[in-house]
């Protein structure tokens, strides 16, 4: 069987710790300036995290416009939290991911009960003629199956495969240990497979 895995970034022990540590240190050192709403520090923070937050939102939502809106809203929520005297104490990254997850969950809750718009077909074929209708249909099936997973299952797949985070990073962002994430990953993929099968029939 041939597999084509789009994701992965594999980090091993020391390398991962160095990268994660560097991100945390950078965030922590910039936090005082962020609290003072220093434009340069805010721009640095935004640009450092926008891509990974957007990919997470896009993976879960499917819709590029909604993903952009909600990612952008996440950063605005950070400002509002800081104004209210809350917000992250040492590293904004986990806070941003936590808030983004809540916003995505809210988006699904608020959409529940409304006529399902589904994933816009233009977003599925937006990359041009190389993407055939068959592939677009398959992506639509995957997106629909994703929506049937639990929030926790969507969360782990979005971090691992949408964001390309390593197992260890995912564990850190989810506040769980690696073994728990491995088990959740297995269950999420198994559930996704079942739902894709149902979508196909």
């Amino acid at each position: 069987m041939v597999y084509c895995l789009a994701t992965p970034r594999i980090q091993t022990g020391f390398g991962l710790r160095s990268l994660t540590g560097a991100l945390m240190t950078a965030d922590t050192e910039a936090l005082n300036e962020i609290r003072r709403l220093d434009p340069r520090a805010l721009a640095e923070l935004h640009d450092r995290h926008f891509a990974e937050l957007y990919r997470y939102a896009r993976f879960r939502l499917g819709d590029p416009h909604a993903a952009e809106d909600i990612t952008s809203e996440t950063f605005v929520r950070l400002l509002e939290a800081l104004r209210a005297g809350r917000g992250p104490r040492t590293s904004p990254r986990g806070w941003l991911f936590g808030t983004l997850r809540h916003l995505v969950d809210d988006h699904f809750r608020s959409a529940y009960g409304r006529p399902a718009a589904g994933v816009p077909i233009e977003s599925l074929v937006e990359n041009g003629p190389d993407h055939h209708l068959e592939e677009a249909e398959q992506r639509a099936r995957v997106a629909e199956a994703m929506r049937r997973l639990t929030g926790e299952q969507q969360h782990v797949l979005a971090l691992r495969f949408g964001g390309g985070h390593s197992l260890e990073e995912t564990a850190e962002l989810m506040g769980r240990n690696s073994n728990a994430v491995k088990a959740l990953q297995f269950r999420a993929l198994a559930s996704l497979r079942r739902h894709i099968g149902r979508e196909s029939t």
Partner: protein
Amino acid sequence: MSRRRDDALQAALELLARGQDPEAALTDLPPGEAAEVRALLATASLLRREEIPAGAPERSRSRFLRHASGLRAAASAPARRLVPRFAFATLAALLALALGLGGLTEATARSLPGDPLYRVRQAAEGLRLRLAANPEDRIRLEAVYAEQHAQNVRRLLELGRVVPVSFNGALRSVGAVLWDVEGIPVRLTPETRILGEILPGMWIEVEGVTQVDGTVLAAEIRLQAYDTVGTLEAMAASQMTVGGVALRLTPQSYLEPGLALGQRVLVRVAIDDDGTRRVISAIRFEPPTPTPRPTEPPSPTATPMPSATEDRRGPPAESPKPEDEPDDETETAEPDEDGEDPVKIEFEGVVQSISGSAWVVDGRTLRIDGGTEIKDNPQVGHTVQVVAFQQPDGSWWAKKIERED
């Protein structure tokens, strides 16, 4: 057994990521489990990592920095500027106004379009804009009010009220009948008047009526302004050229001091009635440096936001977190203005609603954000245990919500 499968799947994913044969990770599994893991690898191969659309980071950064600019202005303008600038008579007038409206301040601030007090709020906003000490402060105040007006409309839509509204904001996306303006769905009809050549990303003003279906029915949509980023190519007294486009300068145009030719600039451009592009503001827009700068000491005029070293009064100590939970997302409720510890409540109740990052539990509205720990996926109707802290504005921020049943 399940642990062995979990490990094998993870090991196979890692091998795949390195371009190696994942079968090496499956050799110790019984045939049935190996087949199951292969099936999941096939499923994983359907999952894609998406590219980021061109312009998305810039749009988001622009909104983020604009919002921050508004907050800075709101936090610092009254304290720093008003006293030395205005004559005694003006201060007296302001004092009289403040005393006259003293009992209404809270209600006025919360009033929405259609409420009797909203006109007072509009008058107060107009007064603050007129008293802005300089064009920079005025622009920032306008940004604050624009954000507040959009928030008002969102609130009206949540409440299901039908009220005439006017608001402005960035046009995020355009559909056949629904436009997304600052996250607000705006419905167009054949009768809707559209003034200007409007494209996504531009700043527009919407006049319409909120509807019970959660949309704003637009009567008129006008192009107000747009943001553009480009290289500053030429600058004269009455005109600047950015990215090949000539833009008119007026005495009201705000130019960040020190702008120089060749710099990347973020320009907010207004469209005048005659179609002229006029500069509202232009600021430097340099890409952030990849490495963090050393922390500078706070400046005397810095916005009085809490610093990490000031986070000395958090919530009362609770039981230690499990080792596998990072503690860098721990939130601290700030002390009240008088230095008192924030009020903490713990209670058990039934979740009545979950929406818009605000939950209602036993009639109490709780704000949640990334610092809120939510355990066991509670839904409406579930009984939960809540730990919350009162914020300076009187609202309750939930630190922890855990499902009980």
